């Protein structure tokens, strides 16, 4: 891919750099543009680690994500490169680099073609991104599944009055990132670098998505065939008989269909995501259904959102690991709508079988036009030893983040 694209892109960028000098700040119309952030983080774990190999105390890190954009003046061609890098003080696996985006997109009338690395989001729910299947999760970034690794792809989008069809050819399978044996929020055993592919390793996956809105309904339907983004794990012997056994990620070939629907009815958002997946254990279905209600101007100009979602998942034990088999999520979001965009979010996912709770509290506020402060806490409470969450039961933490945007 890069071999083909590289020289042309370089040429274009060179031409553009000159242009940027002439017209600085023509950010959105055309031309070359850079944005991004640099963030410092300190993460304090509240409990002793579960395993002696894991570190204790505070973990500091620095993240940097510049975004280079270029667009031709007729807006038909668009190039974007967004590298991401994190340097971590304690966990070598968390020090990593990724290309979140590196693509060329051509738009002609109803048709849009994208070639390169990109990140794609599908879905409507808040607690779990069930149908969001294109990208692999960058798990070392956060456990919520919202940070994702760039995925190589050829995407063809076709927008008509009756909706949008997107066809994806996904190139190059990427494994989930995992913390090292010394890192927190990780697996108790050392992870083997090479994953195991029982159906053979395949680097070309396919997906097709139809999305549309009809009145108050937003609808998406997708089909995916390829390597599962979710992993199961198996224990393998240590490098030498006297060493500790290790764990190895297992990725299977799956086929799935899924839908996501949102009904926006005044201040109520009704959401549903569901899928049927074949190839990972017994064929199963999973769904998230919930509602979000917002009390606008509940206190002065502040809006209060109330959310609840039900999560079910019918997979068997041989399938990829999930934290959500039968859970309920309740949450609330407070937005002050002030000059500093102060927001707070609190929520908890409760397992309806054993009462295990994963809770989250997040407060963010801008402190200047370029600086933003975030405090984020994750708490694992009342975790049953049989729950998959038990891996993190001692990993409740508070995270302080200061980001500088440029």
């Amino acid at each position: 891919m890069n071999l083909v694209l590289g020289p042309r892109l370089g040429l274009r960028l060179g031409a553009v750099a000159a242009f940027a000098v002439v017209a600085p700040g023509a950010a959105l119309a055309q031309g070359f543009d850079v944005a991004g952030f640099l963030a410092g983080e300190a993460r304090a774990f509240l409990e002793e680690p579960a395993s002696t190999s894991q570190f204790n105390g505070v973990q500091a890190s620095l993240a940097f994500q510049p975004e280079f954009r270029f667009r031709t003046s007729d807006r038909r061609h668009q190039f974007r490169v967004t590298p991401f890098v994190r340097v971590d003080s304690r966990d070598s696996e968390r020090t990593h680099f990724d290309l979140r985006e590196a693509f060329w997109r051509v738009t002609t009338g109803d048709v849009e073609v994208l070639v390169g690395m990109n990140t794609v989001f599908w879905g409507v729910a808040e607690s779990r991104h069930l149908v969001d299947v294109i990208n692999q999760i960058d798990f070392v970034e956060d456990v919520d599944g919202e940070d994702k690794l760039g995925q190589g792809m050829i995407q063809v989008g076709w927008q008509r009055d009756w909706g949008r069809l997107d066809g994806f050819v996904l190139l190059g399978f990427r494994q989930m990132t995992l913390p090292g044996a010394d890192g927190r929020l990780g697996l108790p055993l050392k992870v083997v670098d090479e994953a195991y592919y029982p159906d053979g390793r395949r680097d070309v996956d396919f997906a097709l998505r139809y999305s549309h809105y009809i009145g108050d309904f937003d609808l998406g339907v997708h089909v995916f065939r390829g390597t599962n983004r979710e992993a199961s794990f198996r224990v393998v012997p240590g490098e030498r008989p006297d060493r500790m056994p290790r764990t190895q990620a297992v990725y299977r070939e799956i086929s799935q269909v899924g839908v996501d629907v949102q009904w926006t009815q005044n201040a109520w958002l009704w959401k549903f995501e569901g899928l049927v997946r074949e190839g990972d254990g017994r064929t199963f279905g999973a769904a998230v259904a919930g509602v979000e209600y917002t009390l606008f101007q509940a206190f002065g100009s502040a809006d209060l959102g109330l959310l609840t979602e039900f999560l079910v998942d019918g997979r068997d034990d041989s399938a990829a690991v999930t934290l959500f088999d039968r859970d309920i999520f309740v949450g609330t979001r407070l937005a002050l709508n002030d000059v500093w965009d102060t927001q707070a979010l609190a929520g908890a996912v409760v397992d309806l079988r054993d009462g295990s709770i994963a809770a989250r509290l997040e407060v963010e506020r801008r402190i200047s036009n370029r600086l933003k402060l975030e405090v984020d806490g994750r708490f694992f409470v009342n975790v049953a030893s049989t729950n998959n969450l038990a891996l993190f039961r001692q990993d409740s933490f508070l995270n302080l983040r200061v980001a500088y945007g440029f």
Partner: protein
Amino acid sequence: MTSKGKQSDGTARALGLFTTTRPWLVVLLALAVMAAAGSGVRFLEFSNNYRVFFSPENPDLVAFDEFQNTYTKNDNVMFVVQPAEGDVFDPELLEGIEWLTAEAWRIPFAIRVDSITNFQHSWADGDDLTVEDLARNAASRTSAYLAERRDVALAEPLLVGNLIAPDARTTGVNVTLQYPEESLAEVPAAVGHARDLADQMRQRFPGLRVGLTGVSMLNNAFAEAGQTDATTLMPGMFLALVVLMTVVLRSAAGTIGTLLVIAFSSLTALGVAGYLGIKLNPINLTAPVIIMTLGIADSVHLLVSALHKMRDGADKISAIREALRINLLPVAITSVTTVIGFLSLNFSDAPPFRELGNITAVGITAALGYSVVFLPAFLSLTPLRAPKRVDSGARLHGVLMRMADLVTTRHRLVLAVSGTIAIVLIAWLPAIQLEDQFVKYFDHRVDFRGDAEWGMENLTGIYLIEFSVPAESAEGISEPAYLDGLDRFASWLRTQPEVDHVYSYSDVIKRLNRNMHGDSDEWYALPAERDLAAQYLLLYELSLPYGLDLNDRISIDKSSTRVTATLSGMPTSEVRAFLDRAQLWLGSEAPDYMYTAPTGAAVMFAYISQRNIESMLGGNVIAIILIAGVMMIALRSFAIGALSLIPNAVPILMTFGVWALLVREVGMAAATVSATSLGIVVDDTVHFLTKYLRARREEQLDRPEAIRYAFDTVGTALVSTTVILAFGFAVLAFSTFRINAQMGLLTTIAIVLALAVDLFLLPALLMVGHRSRSTEIDSMKLQLGKATSVLLAGLIGLAAFSPTAMAQTTSPASYLEEVDPVKKGRAIAARSDFSDRGFSDSIVALKMLLRNAAGAESTRELVIRTLEVIDEDLGDRSVVIFDSPRDIEGTALLSHAKILDPDDQWLYLPALKRVKRISSVNKSGPFVGSEFAFEDFTALELGKYDYRWLREEACGDLVCDVVERTPRYEHSGYSRQESWVDQRDFQVRRVDFYDRRGDLLKTLELVDYRQYDGSFWRPQRMEMRNHQTGKSTDLVYGDYEFDAGLGDRDFERGALERAR
């Protein structure tokens, strides 16, 4: 697979046990359900109005309603009269026309009668204007009088080609009717009376031909066609089914049981329709025929299995139970897919198709219930005997097995041949032409068709194209410029080959001008002065008798007149071309304010197929995907489910190809056939693939063996159900209503092609990549790829159909001299709004300066892109993209504004790359912490407020009108606003916002106006001051870029990701 299979087996076993051990109870229960549901039949009535074919939201109908509100809302009956020989200016016949004209007033709901005898002939008598009937007491007149009146009539543009043929052989009496629309008996009452009068005329003048046409006759024909179909088609259908069943089943009990099942199902569906208040029309009345056809399949599958078992020696009860066990799952799946197909008709724009879908869905569900519950119970009570094996079945079986050998051994050849045929046929699809001449909806058995075509040939067309041509202001129709435009428009229309007749007010005024100048022909021209034209009109109106006034031609405030062009029968595509030409002429040749869009029933039907196809496309896509989903779950295989898309979609596409080759023209049935036949063609696929997979999984057979197994077990059943279904739908071809006939034929073709595809293409596809067992997965993938590409190809084909909607605009009515403050307020707002029209799209970058009470500042930078939406019922589309603060850089807000409904809004979050539909209730909350609410940016559409003019006052160097505006939309944060609009450039200079308590909340000042491209004014600075908190926000705009080449596609949710 197995667990699910066992589960449904359990259900089936329990059902078999229950229905056969308590048969009487079950039969009674079924009868009770049928009686309860079926008793709704008593609420059914026949609708008789062509308007049922249009949904209330249909823009063409909305436009026509508006038109009728301006003039009069009415229908007509036209008597077309032609003597056996000679022309109509025969003293006796003319007297007869006089009689008919007088008698026609007695037709119920008649409000006006026009004929050549009561035509208001005006002529000069010295300085006086005399207005009298063109012919009175004709029988006692001299031949000189008649000859003179004949000349007048044949020179009068309002009459020739409308009420009198140019050769004077044929004349018409047009009765205008206004129905109270309270009961469905109104139209038949009027039509009955009119037919009575026609008979009396025929008796009085032997050899006289009298035809009845007009909109009321059309409406009546809809009801009569439905009734004819109900009394001929359904019995015919029932008879055909009895014969077929007897041949196929050779069992009296089986035949009777099946007939009871389909009768019960139809009755249940019709009863439910009655409870729902659905009015019958020719289209939804085909539901019983469809239900009977489809309901039979369920019963046949059960019966064939049961009889098969009995032949093999099983006793009756256990044969019934076993038949239920084997068939419950496939029968349930096929019913579900069929119901999905029919329910997707709800996407149609035409309500009769939605009703057809819903009634049929209920009927199919009922047929499933009756087949698996009532039928087994009924059979266990009756003496069911297995017939002897018949030879014809064996012969068919032999043929099928040879076919199985062919497709398994020569699969590449079969694939190449059948694939080529399919592709060639599908390639013909674009040749289809949409055709909706409503007269041709009826076949010659319906009187209306003959009368209407004869009337068009001899007198005048029935397709009326109406234009409500606006003047610049009230009383403006007397302006010379307006009359000149009108006259040129009428002349232009008359030069068009399609046009039979043009009725234009300009002809009336020309005639009056001539009358006022001693009937001198050189004065047959438009009056040169406004006052003169107005006076003529006044004089003329004063002398008109009751019922012949001009209210149906001129709007009450004299701000617009109606131009009617009458067209003869011609292809709908030419009607559309004519409409386009007329609009182009108005847009380019007439003064701007005269621009208008054509309307009328003919216009509505000209676009009905396109609208229905557009609205059905989404429905088809969803149905296809849902059915594929059902197949995947039911067959428990992703690849096979995806592969099934080919045999499901290809036959339907091929059907249109066949039609394009053989017939070419198709009416609105085209839009819906894909939905109705989809659910049916799927059934063959389900049966074939279920058996194939059973052989692969349970019997561990390889592919050729499994295909042979499928041919062996379901081949005969597929062929016989196809025959039954094809017969059933072919019956519809005999409908008097052409749409139904087309639907019947198209569906028949689709079903037959589906069988061919299932017997050739599908097995050949299943064979693709067959080498040995180890390479199964690869070929599965290959098949998936093929399935996807065929699906895409199909969608591309369908999309090629989708037409581009015609843009419509209306020009502003100007009431600026109004004293009524409400009208004046609205007029000022409208003028301001219109001064802004036509910018097409714009891009502007702006800076937002937020200041708190203490003076501390913070800034935001954003870009707003706007797409102008011309339709006054919709608002503009916009995208707001943030550039700073940097943490929200790239956040974008897409908004599709509506007038009174909540806007559609989507928020794009760049960090997650997520698009989220958000609630637009929050119009009045602070927008990104500023003093602007979102509604302050977006609620700029004219229709969002009620207006009231308050006063005139100085604003800066200018004079402003102060207009109060009260939000009409929900969830506004304001009780009212006062806006200052200057009288020079018509721009808003200041707005005061009052909160819900009625206190002054904010003041917005719009300054530094700049004119772009010589036309669009934009403020370069807006300052919002909050009086209650002391905070303020300024917006400082950069240069606007207009006509930046943005299009619809830049304002779709899918485009947000590339907005930056």
